[in-house]
């Protein structure tokens, strides 16, 4: 059945692929899931679901995790997946890999046991709440993969597709894996991931050259109007924010009153509407409503919901600042919506020197801390911790948030991470977030989903929680092309 039912090549274009070594990825992850899978995955509602592990259990102290592996899972080379393979992957990431989210998580692992071929027991030094979620990105590969000791050049995973021909920044072809463990999957002959930058994906989709693509709001609207595709969005939203230089703030932008005044000038609803249309949400938090970490009370108390220029001017007067005397060094990516914020800020009288740079240019410039304000955004994550960790003093790549250095904040986040109890954990995170607001490190403008357009005739695909193209309960494995 499986053989005959497979039909067509699915053309998929969202994010790129940086490396053929799934353990060494440091960022964008939307492609590798098609050929490698993890013990867990994130369901469309954000919950952790079993994947290669058919079940898992956590000890009450939050220190011991026991995984029961699915039976009959085969690697692309035909080998059966065993507990030892899983342990080897844990070991490899722990010892060999230098960057990435997982590295710090795995530093906590003190003991790895494989009592039998299908059981893996992991013991941590101290409780680490995001562990299960983060494991959804610890891909399990056959230790026989070429380059295992250095850089894996030909990953052998268990995914529904196998790693085929890869041309960086051009394309990756992944042919279907006949012995995939899930019955009836995959349903297409291959997935061709388009990895090119700069192409107009929506036009290509309209011309029929692509099937599933990520698009911005304007393109999504066009596609909808043209009636060629259905528009959906990643279930976890991206959050948009304005940040200030927190590491080396310049006068007068170190003054919380000035920062608040600037925020009062911004019409969050207008910006968010531009970015996300009617799918956008105006709020002041890291997550959107519906997420368990969302706090309704805090949301309701958002004083910046509506622009208030009078209030802004009042605050500026209080701080003794004449806007006309100051030029805001404003940094952003080459996106459109920061221009809207810039224009709103100008209304207060500030001069703005807006520098829009390519990704790395922005990164570098922000890292120099010679700017005042920036507007950027951050995408879906498998765990809330990955949002908070960026606000920590020694967190990875903190520049988007102005390089906050606040021991108090650090300790609140650490407490949250160590807290096995979810209610208490939520409370710690909330406290931490409140602190950022009080200090005026950055202000959330709102949330909007990253839009995904699915061409008519593609069946069974709906975007998941993150950018992942494949997860236990959905994704490219169950996607079919209607003739």
């Amino acid at each position, binding site marked *: 059945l499986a053989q005959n039912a497979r039909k067509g090549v699915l053309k998929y274009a969202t994010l790129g692929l940086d490396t053929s070594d799934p353990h060494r990825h440091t960022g964008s992850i939307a492609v590798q899931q098609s050929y490698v899978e993890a013990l867990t995955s994130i369901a469309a509602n954000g919950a952790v679901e079993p994947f290669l592990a058919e079940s898992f259990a956590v000890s009450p102290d939050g220190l011991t995790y026991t995984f029961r592996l699915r039976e009959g899972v085969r690697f692309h080379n035909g080998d059966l997946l065993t507990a030892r393979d899983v342990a080897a992957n844990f070991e490899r990431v722990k010892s060999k890999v230098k960057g990435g989210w997982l590295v710090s998580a795995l530093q906590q692992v003190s003991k790895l046991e494989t009592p039998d071929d299908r059981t893996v027991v992991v013991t941590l030094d101290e409780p680490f709440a995001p562990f299960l979620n983060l494991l959804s990105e610890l891909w399990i590969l056959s230790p026989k993969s070429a380059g295992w000791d250095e850089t894996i050049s030909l990953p052998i995973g268990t995914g529904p597709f196998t790693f085929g021909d890869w041309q960086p920044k051009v394309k990756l072809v992944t042919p279907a894996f006949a012995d995939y463990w899930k019955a009836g999957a995959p349903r297409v002959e291959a997935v061709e991931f388009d990895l090119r930058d700069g192409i*107009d994906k929506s036009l290509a989709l309209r011309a029929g050259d692509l099937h599933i693509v990520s698009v911005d709001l*304007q393109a999504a609207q*066009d596609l909808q109007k043209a009636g060629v595709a259905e528009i959906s969005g990643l279930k976890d939203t991206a959050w948009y924010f304005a940040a200030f230089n927190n590491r080396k703030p310049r006068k007068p932008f170190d003054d919380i009153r000035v920062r608040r005044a600037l925020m009062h000038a911004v019409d969050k609803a*207008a910006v968010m*509407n*531009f970015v996300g249309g009617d799918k956008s949400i105006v709020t002041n938090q890291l997550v959107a409503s519906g997420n368990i970490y969302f706090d309704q009370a805090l949301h309701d108390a958002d004083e910046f919901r509506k622009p208030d220029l009078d209030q802004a001017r009042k605050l500026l007067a209080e701080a003794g600042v004449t806007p006309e005397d100051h030029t805001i060094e404003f940094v*952003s990516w*080459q996106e*459109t919506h*920061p*221009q*809207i914020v*810039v*224009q709103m800020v*100008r209304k207060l009288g500030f001069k703005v*020197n*807006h*520098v*829009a*740079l*390519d990704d790395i*240019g922005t990164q570098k410039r922000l890292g120099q801390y010679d700017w005042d304000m920036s507007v950027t955004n951050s995408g879906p994550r498998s765990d809330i911790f990955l949002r908070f960790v960026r606000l920590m003093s020694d967190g990875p790549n903190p520049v988007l948030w102005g390089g906050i250095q606040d021991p108090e904040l650090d300790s609140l986040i650490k407490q949250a991470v160590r807290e096995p109890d979810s209610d208490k954990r939520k409370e710690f995170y909330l406290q931490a977030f409140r602190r950022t607001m009080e200090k005026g490190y950055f202000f959330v403008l709102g949330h909007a989903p990253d839009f995904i357009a699915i061409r008519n005739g593609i069946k069974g695909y709906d975007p998941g929680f993150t950018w992942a193209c494949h997860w236990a309960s959905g994704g490219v494995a169950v996607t079919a092309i209607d003739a």
Partner: protein
Amino acid sequence: MSARPIAMMPAGRRASFLRRHCPAGICLPAAIVLLLAAAGLAAPWLTAHSPLDQDLLQLNKGPGAGFPLGTDHLGRDILSRLLYGARSTLAVSALGTVIAFAAGAGLGLLALTLGHWAERILFAAIDLIRALPGTLLALLLIVGLGSGSGPLTIALGVSFVPVVAYVTRAAYHREAARDYVLAAASFGGNGLHILSRHILPNIAGTLITQAAIILPRCIVTESVLSFLGVGSSPDAPTWGRMIADSSRFIERAPHAIMAPLVTLVLLTLSLSLLGNQLRRRFDPIRQETDVPGPAADPAPAAVRPVEAGGC
């Protein structure tokens, strides 16, 4: 050979003063160029909108009341962007052209005047620039020097230096081989004297034509760089940026790209006409006295005026 000199025009024909001194071939394009420049300067009085003001409820609106040329993808008034854009666009491209000429023609002439070795060294350096395609070079330079209108202008200028330098060199050598240059040298005229008195006036026509081509090409290159993500600052109303930005919305809002594009084509056309005309103006005599050079001079008869002989 081709057109007869003015001296040969039938004496009876009388042209009006304006016709004679400013024929349509020069007046019209010159008027268009000046108009565009003036529009840039007078932008604040010509339009009520600021080029930066956004009306987020009126994105990509076609021409209509309030917005004579419509709005762009951020709800900005295209007319005012076009007008204010004339300023920055013309400034950047003119400055780029000036840089290209200062380095290509200025340095080029200096080196040529200084002699064989200076020429070799300078042109070896210029060949370095020439060994990379212009756009790629500009791209590398901007990424290297950092964005902003300064580096942009420099990159534009530098990428056109080789063209200018080579045209200048060819024109210089053509001119330097003429006998009047030798004659001036035989009177003890130094390099500077020969350059300013004899060579410069005679190659000015060629240089002007070249400038008329390079100026619009600066604008186009700027738009290409914007398209590639390294142009001027994102809200700067330059024509190049406008073209690059609105190319994404060409289907929804064709007017947004047409406005700057048509203006650019108009400017280019005018400049090219103007360049041609000016060169012709500059060189009413050239056609006639252009002798191929001392070595190949077999048929001076062909370039001799008819009223030869007799006195």
